[in-house]
């Protein structure tokens, strides 16, 4: 039930943000500080999520096969591979490291 509430709250919030942009006159939102935050907040959150999902196990930090997978994803990105190839590279390399 909590999951459904989270799903619907996220849906409502994300929809309203999209609609807000289409309906509000640009001058109301378009201030340098707000604009900078909208560009940089995703950078901070995505970097944090990448690090946490690679190195955290609950409250513990440690290195495991996921780091090898992330390195493979990094190489794939650097080679400009499509999104799914990047994800697959991470999955396959992580699985192989666990087998080894």
């Amino acid at each position, binding site marked *: 039930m909590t999951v459904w509430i*989270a799903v619907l709250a996220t849906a409502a919030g994300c929809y309203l943000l999209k609609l807000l942009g289409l309906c509000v006159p640009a001058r109301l939102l378009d201030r340098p500080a707000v604009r900078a*935050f909208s560009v940089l907040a995703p950078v901070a959150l995505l970097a*944090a999520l990448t690090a946490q999902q690679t190195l955290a196990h609950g409250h513990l930090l440690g290195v495991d096969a996921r780091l090898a997978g992330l390195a493979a*994803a990094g190489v794939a990105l650097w080679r400009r591979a499509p999104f*799914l190839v*990047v*994800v697959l590279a991470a999955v396959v*390399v992580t699985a192989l490291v666990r087998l080894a």
Partner: protein
Amino acid sequence: MTVTTQPSCADGRAARPARAVLRDSLTVGVGVGVSGVAFGAAGAGAHLTVAQTCALSLLVFTGASQFALVAALAAGAAPVAAVAGALFLGIRNAFYGMRLAERLRLPVALRPLAAQLVIDETAAVTLAQPDRRAARLGFTATGVCLFALWNLTTLLGALGAGAVGDPARYGLDAAGPAVFLALLAPRLRDPRERRVAVAAVVLVLAGTPLLPTGVPVLLALAAVPLAAVPLVGPAGRGRSGR
């Protein structure tokens, strides 16, 4: 969601042929749309039901927020923290909306429908078009194609991954960080963005042992004011950050 999000300016060509606009739209729509399979798998891996995973793609329909919510719930974060992270990631869509509103000049009655399609990819395609007709066509074609495929492949991914079983056995737990890295990479173009990313990593890792699950990711938002301030005057380029 791999598409570069800073839309390039119109390149000055007048009245682009519809065929060229459609080609752009479908390239992006198909290329990114099929990535819904990764989201479907992520939802299943997080023990969401197929209905919950599909509801996210239908109703939220903005990849980074969807992946972030699912990752936070899977890690056991408090729902409030999980939703907050997803919403912070959605703020940028409001800014795409502002740019698109100028470009598309949509009738008021169409805005509630068009709003759901305001995301990275539709903004990139639409804002790259030189005239309003091409912009409207690009927005509609990219949005409809991406929405249809993203939702279809989400369903397939959720059903497929649900059938596979324990995600860690197949390395599927590495899909999450790879997705976030792929979403992050195009945003690391200038030194300010790289400083923010490095500071965010430091904050989240420092917070993980100490704070309740889900909170360290929000703490990482403090990297924005901490690292975004230019280190020196206009001549100073700051350090490269990596």
